[in-house]
């Protein structure tokens, strides 16, 4: 029992990072209808930039954290302007493939600069674990969970009350109507990429503090798909819940597969089995908008 409780807690922590990455994905998808296969690579680049600033340039962690966010914003604007904007209105396969091309470029960039071996962040938080229900939990886990809950709160308020957030929702709902009401949808597109890159970078930095970083970090982006499909592609709440549910489920499946069948590494594939099942039963997820087609 304690074993499974530990699995659930680990799942919640990893799941909260999936949620952050899924948040970035959903924001881009909502505003621009672009499916971003490079989401995981944005996580990886953010983590590496922060790593380079703290370890190689010896800057204090907080400074390099903020500089990383600035870098992410610059990268997002560049990507949106140079790569995504020419493809507005192109078929979905072109848009998917252009983000896949982008992910190859980012991966290649990271490997050319930092190589492929695992790099470790210096410890920022204390190592002494907290005790919760008799289980030890590292402070970095608590921080990871707290930070992602905080970010979700901030973005929910942002979308609900700020005029920029309302403009973004309007754009997502109907681009033409939003444009005729005087919303500059090009800047909204750029903004949504910036937000996505920033939250992904934060996810990457947290993950780097937990596990260290290597060039495989981008694989995390794949985990976003089960999470957002479960939650619904265009729902923020769905992204949050989907990430947590997938995080917990994959940990439990991994544990159960090892416990019952002696099958290793089931974690990698469990979320995709879940994904196929969700797609069969409820293709628009828990909170997604159903597309209704009429001839």
């Amino acid at each position, binding site marked *: 029992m304690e074993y499974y409780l530990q699995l659930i807690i680990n799942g919640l922590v990893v799941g909260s990072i999936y949620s952050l990455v899924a948040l970035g994905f959903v924001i881009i998808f909502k505003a621009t209808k672009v*499916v971003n296969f490079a989401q995981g690579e944005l996580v990886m680049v953010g983590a590496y930039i922060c790593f380079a600033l703290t370890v190689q340039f010896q800057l204090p962690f907080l400074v390099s954290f903020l500089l990383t966010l600035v870098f992410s914003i610059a990268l997002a604007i560049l990507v949106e302007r140079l*790569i995504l904007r*020419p*493809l507005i209105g*192109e078929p*979905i*396969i*072109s848009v*998917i*493939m*252009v983000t*896949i*091309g*982008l*992910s*190859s*470029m980012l*991966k*290649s*960039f*990271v*490997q*050319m600069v930092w190589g492929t071996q695992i790099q470790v962040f210096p410890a920022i938080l204390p190592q002494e674990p907290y005790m919760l229900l008799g289980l030890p939990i590292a402070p970095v886990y608590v921080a990871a969970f707290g930070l992602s809950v905080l970010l979700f709160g901030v973005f929910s308020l942002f979308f609900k009350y700020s005029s920029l957030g309302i403009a973004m929702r309007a754009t997502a709902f109907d681009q033409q109507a939003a444009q005729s009401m005087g919303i500059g949808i090009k800047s909204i597109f750029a903004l949504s990429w910036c937000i996505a890159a920033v939250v992904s970078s934060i996810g990457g930095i947290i993950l780097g503090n937990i596990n260290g970083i290597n060039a495989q970090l981008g694989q995390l982006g*794949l985990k976003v*798909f*089960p999470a957002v*499909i479960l939650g619904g*592609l265009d729902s923020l709440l769905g992204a949050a819940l989907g990430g947590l549910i997938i995080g917990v489920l994959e940990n439990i499946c991994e544990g159960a597969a090892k416990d019952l069948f002696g*099958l*290793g*590494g*089931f974690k*990698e*594939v469990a979320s*995709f*089995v879940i*994904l*196929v099942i969700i*797609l*069969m039963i409820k*293709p628009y997820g828990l909170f997604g908008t159903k597309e209704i*087609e009429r*001839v």
Partner: protein
Amino acid sequence: MSMQKCGLFYTTYAREDGLFPSKFQKICLALFFAVLLVCPQFLDSYVMSILNLILIAVIGAVSLNLLTGVCGQMSLGHGAFVGVGAYGAAVLSNMGVPFFLALLGGGAVAAMVGMIFGIPSLRLKGIYLAISTLAAQLILEYVFLHAGSITGGANGLPVDAPEIMGYSFDTDSKIFYLILLVTVLCVLVVTNVIRTRPGRAFVAIRDYHQSAENVGVNLFAFKLQAFGLSSFLAGIAGGLWAHYTMYITPEQFSMGLSISYLAMIIIGGMGSVLGSIFGAIFITLLPEMLNLLTTSLGGIAPDLSAIIVPMKEGVFGLMLVLFLIFEPEGLARKWRLTKAYWKLYPFAY
């Protein structure tokens, strides 16, 4: 396939329906194949191995183009279907089944798996279908790695060189003829399928599925056929690959393979058979060109070899992005434009 010269007038419908309506076209093709047939005599085994890989890639690209370019069903799992065919053919051939039967058997297994993962396509489109085929890719990869008793797991599976009537195709030049034969057959199959009733139905589904349904196209049947045929051919490509490299491991059939097949059809031209061939050539040659570049620059900058592997991926991504932005219809369109230019030369119109 419209390499037609000026002044070609059809006098019968049969003539117009022909695969190669003009004599000039037939002569060009015959010359092309004559050159291909004699080239093993003159080229070394390294160049032959690249040629073989290109031919196998052509089968994969043509089959994916049938599914994605013609029928409009995007698949991110094509590499895994190739893998299913490779393992299927390898296992059969290790059991002593003759080469061609093993190849067909591998194709059949791949077709079955492809159709199973094609079932969700009835309800899913666009992004949802892409993600469900992505799931297929990752699930199949896991199976390759963990069904150790069949696939050999991470250690891989050794395969013998193909042997027909006691003649062993064990060198790059010998197996070239075999691969060429199968590739030509596969390309002919796809070209002809596009010209027939199911092919028209595929195009109708791609262009607008609801209109297609309204004019009497059975969506479920034709989508499944597209998945089945496409994965069958992918399986054939896999079987050839297994017999050619003589050793298969799960990481050969990773997500990267699926993506490079998609890149081939995008760079070549969606929905075009000729485009798939161009794309397969382009994507297979790209890393070789980079190798050539680094060995020639080796004298000047010896550190270059350390970054060459990641650089390949970056150049691949860059090419994909550049093609999508500047030439979304691919090399097939460039080819058409070039031909049109020379047809009217020296006049612009």
